């Protein structure tokens, strides 16, 4: 699978599952979700609260240890879960237990051997995946270090040959510092998160400078001047002023707090940002400011954004592609224009019919479509999966529904 990831895909989520223990039961917050995010695009994830969209974002950035599936970033597996493999093993055990029961003497032994071989194969796969994911930071750091070596070694050699002791000392110091930082760098720092609630996501006891520079400090940068310079630069970038650096979060309004949250995630120069409902806690007029800021930053740094929200008009405005989630499943995935023009899954339709618009006459005529999963689908025999109905338009459906959706698209 890893080999097949095309170059323009920055992040691939492959059968991601995230289950939570609830006493004896399990809550399937995210259930085998797969999608790709291409470089430089904004991928919107929508759904009602509790459908697992936030959990998906948090699992990608490894806040939770994922239960099953894998996450690939730039082709490198950064998280792996074991659940699918263990499920496969127990299924094999069950299957062979039946077979062994009915088999005759000699066959039993052969079957046992076959079973053990298969299980060992799955186990090996599982181990490889986990190791792969565990090593992601190490190999990334090693790559950074070797890049540094390549760059500095010849320079140092040149300097020592030239006998320029001052230059040599400077280079060595710089090299040592950068090497230390590179060794500490983790791959995940390239993905940063903006949290939903600007109030509770900022530590009330830290000044804005401390909050914004925390990532740099953790990464091993000790140069105070450099840090301050970066903080001021970022503050101005997000529309705040230098003087704000010494203040505490409570001295800011909601919109400004969210700007601080954005500054904190942008200072690490990430390639990807996971924005978890960044505007839903804000006033309408401030929402527009924050959205404009995000799109400016996107242009400026060529960011890739996973935009999680429940406000469909905002998602439509901001995203290139949209995934719709319902109770832990990804039910529809399409370009945003296509999704709004031809919604196929009944849940998407009900979601679209619930968007309030600033138009009293059509609002009063609006009929909301109610989605009832049990009444809508019959998955007792024909099992559903995510299928491509037209180019780039995926719907979670079974065979019968697939045909129906195809016909609907053809008619239009």
């Amino acid at each position, binding site marked *: 699978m890893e080999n097949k990831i095309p170059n323009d895909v920055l992040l691939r989520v492959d059968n991601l599952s995230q289950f939570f223990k609830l006493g004896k039961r399990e809550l399937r917050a995210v259930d085998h979700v797969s999608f790709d995010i291409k470089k430089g695009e904004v991928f919107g994830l929508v759904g*009602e609260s509790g459908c697992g969209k936030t959990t998906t974002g948090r699992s990608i950035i490894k806040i939770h240890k994922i239960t099953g599936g894998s996450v690939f970033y730039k082709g490198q597996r950064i998280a792996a879960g074991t659940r699918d493999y263990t499920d496969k093993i127990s299924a094999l055990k069950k299957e062979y237990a039946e077979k062994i029961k009915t088999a005759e003497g000699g066959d039993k032994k052969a079957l046992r051997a076959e079973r053990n071989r298969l299980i060992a194969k799955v186990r090996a796969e599982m181990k490889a995946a986990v190791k792969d994911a565990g090593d992601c930071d190490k190999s990334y750091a090693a790559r950074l270090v070797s890049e540094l070596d390549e760059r500095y070694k010849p320079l140092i050699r040149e300097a020592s040959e030239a006998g320029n002791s001052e230059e040599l000392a400077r280079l060595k110091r710089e090299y040592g510092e950068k090497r230390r930082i590179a060794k500490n760098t983790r791959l995940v720092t390239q993905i940063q998160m903006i949290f939903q609630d600007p109030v509770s996501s900022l530590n009330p006891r830290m000044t804005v400078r401390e909050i914004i520079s925390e990532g740099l400090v953790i990464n091993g940068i000790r140069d105070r001047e450099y840090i301050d310079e970066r903080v001021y630069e970022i503050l101005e970038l997000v529309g705040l002023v230098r003087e704000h650096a010494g203040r505490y979060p409570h001295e800011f309004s909601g919109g400004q707090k969210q700007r601080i949250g954005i500054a904190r995630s942008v200072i690490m120069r990430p390639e990807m940002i996971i924005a978890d409902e960044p505007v839903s806690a804000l006033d309408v*007029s401030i929402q*527009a400011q924050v959205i404009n800021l995000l799109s400016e930053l996107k242009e400026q740094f060529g960011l890739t954004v996973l935009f999680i929200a*429940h406000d469909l008009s905002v998602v439509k405005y901001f995203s290139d592609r949209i995934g719709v989630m319902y109770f832990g499943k990804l039910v529809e995935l399409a370009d945003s224009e296509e999704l709004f023009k031809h919604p196929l899954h009944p849940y998407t339709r009900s979601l679209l019919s619930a968007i*309030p618009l600033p138009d009293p*006459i*059509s609002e009063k005529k609006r009929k909301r479509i109610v989605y009832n999963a049990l009444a809508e689908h019959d998955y007792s025999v024909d099992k559903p999966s995510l299928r491509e109905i037209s180019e780039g338009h995926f719907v979670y459906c079974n065979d019968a529904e697939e045909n129906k959706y195809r016909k609907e698209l053809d008619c239009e």
Partner: protein
Amino acid sequence: MDNILEVKNLKISFRTSSGILKAVRNISFNLKRGETLAIVGESGSGKSVTSKAILGILAGNSIVESGEILYDGRDMLKISEEEMCKIRGDKISMIFQDPLSSLDPIVKIGRQITEAMLLKNKTNRKRARAEFNSMLECLKQNMTEAAESHPEIDAAKIPEMIETFDGFNILAIKLENAYNLSSNYAEGLLSDIKDFVFRASKKQRVEVKKTLLEFVSILKLVKNPFFSAGADGEIDTLCNEIALERKAYTVAKDENGAAQPYLLSDRLLSALERTEQLLERLLAAEKPNFFRIGYYLLRNPEASLDYRDIAGVNQMALEYLNREYMEEFISYEELAIRHSYASSLAKKREALSVLDGVRKYFSSERLIPSEAKAEVKRAVDAVENAIDRLEYIKDNVAYTFGGSLQSAVDKYFRYESLNPKEEKRYEKQSARREALVARGKKVDWRVAPKNVYDLDELRAEIISVIDRLAAVYNRALDAEGERDIHAHAVGLIDYLKGRASEVVYRVTKRMARDKAIKLMEEVGIPDARIRFKQYPFEFSGGMRQRIVIAIALAANPDVLICDEPTTALDVTIQAQILELINKLKRERNLSVIFITHDLGVVANMADRIAVMYAGKIVEEGTSEDVFYDPRHPYTWALLSSMPDLDTSERLDAIPGTPPNLIYPPVGDAFAPRNKYAMKIDFEMPPPMFEISETHRAATWLLHPDAPHVDIPKTIRDRIERMKTRNGGGSDGE
């Protein structure tokens, strides 16, 4: 449509550590019966403060500077806390913004919904008893007084007559009490049986033996000569049947040996079903009129009536009552009412002249506390005297006059003494600041503005209290002779009957629970019976908000204030909640004040919209006016800053943040963020310009001398799109 709630010139400020924050700066609006008024604005625009002022739940550091909130003739800002308690939650209810923090986390949902019902019922019964007694006493007194001038009345008969009225009412109450008790038991038992069968069918834990024993004991209590007339035998058989089944019950086991206590025998289920049917039949039967039967039984204690034919008994008792007692009683009563009415009118005339004098005093040059106190007392006494005590629809203006006048006068004298101190403080601090500035120091603090009240305004308030009552009196005097005495007499008897039955109406915990479950089903909570026993944390955000709505509706209010009820919810739940509020509004003819910052939400809900900014209403109109023809730059900004499904260009964000209201701006508060601002916007606050009968906006752009400014292109395009989508239908409207 008449106004149910009027807010006039309301000004509210808050004392904060950094100065006086002027949260609401002179707003007026009214709410018509059965309409939805949306108040839209950013956070900090004073919309929540306004709604809290209506309910009298402002924070402790708030100051109501001036203004009136009129509900049902009463000024909500001046009435006493006891009066307020009768209105708050009962007549005007509120849905709060955050469903998590407005529910008690350690109390079960069921108790939170029923709590108010039970408490209200207790106080209502006490109040009804007191009202019944005082009204009867008053009637007796008036009859005696009327007898002096009317020889046809036999004064000797009056005490006996009143005693009889009281007597048969009490008998009726007793009978009705017993009847209600039985009927409550029946109702509770019915829902319990349903609950039991429901739980068993859902394979939930049930304690069969204990529950069945309870059923039998309650079923026996249902027996009552009126309620279960003719069905006593049936009840006994059912009791025996259930008791037998209880004895025969054993816990069933499945093939794995696990207990299945929820498996009930068919015979038990059929017995329970028949019990249900019987109870439903009894509950559906016509209710006896105890008022009539009470009189009949008072006169004929030995009589035996066949209560199976309730309609016949009701008719017979009615004829008997009219013939023997009621006709005479009503004729006496009418005379009493006429007498009381006439004397009250005369006293009203007197009171008017007194009021005139008091008004003159308060308009005079100087007020002295002791004199003012005497004047207030004179006015209050005159008004108290002039109240027609036999009037059962209470004239609230007169009843609350004393309190209102007193508080207005108190406020005047309080600020008369406080104002100079405040002036002095201001001068002292300004002088200090100027001195520092003069010495070339950098001063990083500002002098908090003066918190001085305009004494003339306070005086005008006193006079307005007097004027309002005078206007009511003048209207009453003009309408002299138009009163239908007979209708009033009948109404009075109905009123007394109503009070008497209110005394009897006892909400038990069981009844409250049933009502709560019905409410929960009404607001769309599935499995209400199970949900009833859960804690708030077991509910999702949308469900919690529904609980809050159910609690708000429990008292059957006239006015519902929704303070951002959907801000914390996502689109689908938001749409459900909005539909729910709309549906309830239609069914119960509610008037709704809907507070939000999201214009998209109100398009579906609002009949009228008021846009608020920095404590003032900047635009007001019907929802068509505001959405299709917005006039104020702030409304434009609000509309253009939110993307709709066709938006692709860059959003027009409003730059900056709302002004700090500790230092309110001199001119138009929106001017610093407004790209169309003119010079005058920074100098003078704009007045309200009328655009049409329903549409008003406060912006200098509407002044005839102002330059012509077009609506921003994004909004114009959007309105065009909406018009084409609606088939041009909006042009004609």
